[in-house]
């Protein structure tokens, strides 16, 4: 009886790993497309003269070193990726008027993020069945959450001014490029495994 159950568990793991491998490749392919579209749409946001906003610059302490994509496992990278996209989606979904950004561009930006989040959630659910590593993932997720908390606090402090949004736009560009590196790392790991 135990042998039969063990055999079934092994089969499920093998099948899920195969499915996960295929799913990961598809998700990463989609992620690269989302990254390009997000950058393009975000940079269509017309901001005030950036020279005027130089006094409003702030270092939000993007946790690049602590969440270095080259240092942790595939499961942790997926968790960080998912948390970052989730926070970016939440940031721009809020009913905060953004002058200079066309509504169509904003909607398309949010739709791309939402679809990618769904793919990632399905993939993370499959990954969670294989192995448990939630403790390390939660720590990394917390760091990402704290980073975006700082951004939101800044916006509130600056009363969501034009210069504040200009500064935030520049910071989100850095986030998306961090997501680029993370996606590249996952692609490399997926090809090697």
């Amino acid at each position, binding site marked *: 009886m135990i042998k039969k159950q063990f055999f079934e568990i092994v089969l499920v793991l093998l099948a899920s790993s195969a499915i996960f491998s295929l799913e990961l490749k598809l998700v990463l392919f989609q992620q690269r497309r989302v990254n390009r579209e997000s950058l393009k749409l975000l940079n269509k946001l017309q901001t005030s003269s950036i020279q005027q906003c130089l006094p409003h610059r*702030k*270092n939000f302490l993007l946790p690049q070193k602590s969440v270095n994509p080259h240092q942790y496992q595939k499961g942790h990278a997926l968790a960080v990726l998912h948390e970052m996209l989730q926070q970016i989606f939440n940031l721009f979904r809020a009913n905060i008027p953004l002058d200079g950004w066309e509504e169509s561009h904003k909607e398309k930006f949010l739709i791309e993020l939402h679809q990618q989040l769904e793919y990632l959630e399905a993939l993370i659910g499959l990954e969670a069945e294989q192995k448990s590593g939630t403790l390390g993932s939660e720590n990394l997720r917390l760091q990402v959450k704290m980073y975006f908390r700082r951004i939101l606090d800044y916006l509130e402090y600056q009363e969501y001014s034009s210069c504040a949004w200009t500064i935030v736009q520049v910071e989100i560009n*850095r986030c998306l490029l961090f997501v680029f590196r993370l996606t*590249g790392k996952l692609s490399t790991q997926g090809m090697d495994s």
Partner: protein
Amino acid sequence: MLLSQNALAIRPLNLYPVVFISLMFGILHALSDSPDESCIAFNMTLRNFQSILSWELKNRSIVPTHYTLSYTVMSKPAGEMVVEDCINITRSFCDLTDVWESVSETYLPTVVGFRGNTMLVSCWDKVFVALDMSLEPPEFEIVGFINHIDVIVKFPPVIPKMLVGKNLQTYLSLVIEEKSGSIVNLHRPKIDGNTTGNFTYVIDKLIPNTNYCVSVYFEPKNLGKIHRSPLKCTRLQPGQESESSESVKIGGIITLFLIAAVFISTIITLKRIGYICLRHDYPKVLNFYKLSAWVFPELPPLEAVAIVEVIHINRKKKVWDYEYGDESDSDNEAVPRASAGGYTMHGLTGLCPLASTSSASLENCSNPDAEEPDLPEPGVESEPLMTPGPGPCQSECTDGDYERRGNQLQGHFSEEDNSSTEGSEDRIVFNVDLNSVFVRVQDDDDAEVPPMLSCLPEEAVDLEDPNEMETSLLVASGEGTQPPFPNPSVECLWPEDAPSDESDTSESDVDIGDGYITR
């Protein structure tokens, strides 16, 4: 009147300073305040793995003689930083390799144009490296061979900090485009931040004597335009490849010719030796159809023989006392037991030694004191003593000789088996070489006629020996006889009936009557 005239004169005079001040204020404001971000256009390129920032003033009427470049970043509050290598430069570009180290950073460069000591213009703009940096194709060379092309891409000895490590393959990939006519193939060799010096990539499996063009470029993985390099073309070498192909063809033709010649010669040889012929009957040795028979040769068919039951007769060895009386041993003789074929060992054995020993036996017929003939060993079953087909009872030896021979044989056999001849279960089967004997061709009519045997070779008998003749006569008359053949119907011609001169058993004396060969 005068006041009105004075008022009219005063108004223009009051305006002039206002205008002048305003103009001066505006100029000063323009100079002291942040430079106009729109007066300049920056262009950042990655040229031979060097970050080059070039600029062009939008107002072409303003032509400074010298430029000074400075920059700041947007990710953190930082001051203006002047690029040391780009102070009072006459060129309109600056190498920022290892100055700008982050691809994800947004930089704000500022260019101040001077003419002499006069500042003419100060312009700035933002540069987001990941999106705004264009990738120029690398320098490369191609070397064409017969069926492949070596593409040598020149990498710098040191990769810029912004692309070192995994960043290079994260943001860009190297693409080698191979064109031949309308066919385009893309090759994506793997590179990383550790790739330095001359990087060689081989495009193989090409068609010789064909023109190929190669283009190399970097493909940005984020956004950005692709800038292809100018095509470099080469025509692959044709000579050796075609010659080798021709030599291969010639070799193939020669090989085929040799195979055909060998095949034809084999056919001719087989035909000559008779394996291949028009007839269907070919030598049995070449009959491979019966492979089993070839591998396991069949034993020669046994000659038709009849089994003779050997009857052992135990009797004393009688010493011949040179008496020619009745030497009938009928009292001492046991009734020879008739075999199924009607033959007995008695007499018959004297008649039927083996061919190999027949001569010796016959010699011993004439010399009764001779030693026992070289009889076959009883254990030699390979040459069993058998009576073949029918044969005449006639022999060149007398009955006495037969007796002696029989005695010898019986004695010989009695040595091995002293069982009584009566009801003896022992049977000795012996073979007789029919070539040395006369056999009877058993007809259906003569089925009852027991087979007879004359196993005495002709050459071994000396019928002119009067002793033998007399002995045989006496035996024949004395015994009256008990012929070796129990069938009274046997007709035999005794030697008395045959002229002694005709001892030679010539074939002319052979008379086949009733199936017997007589002499």
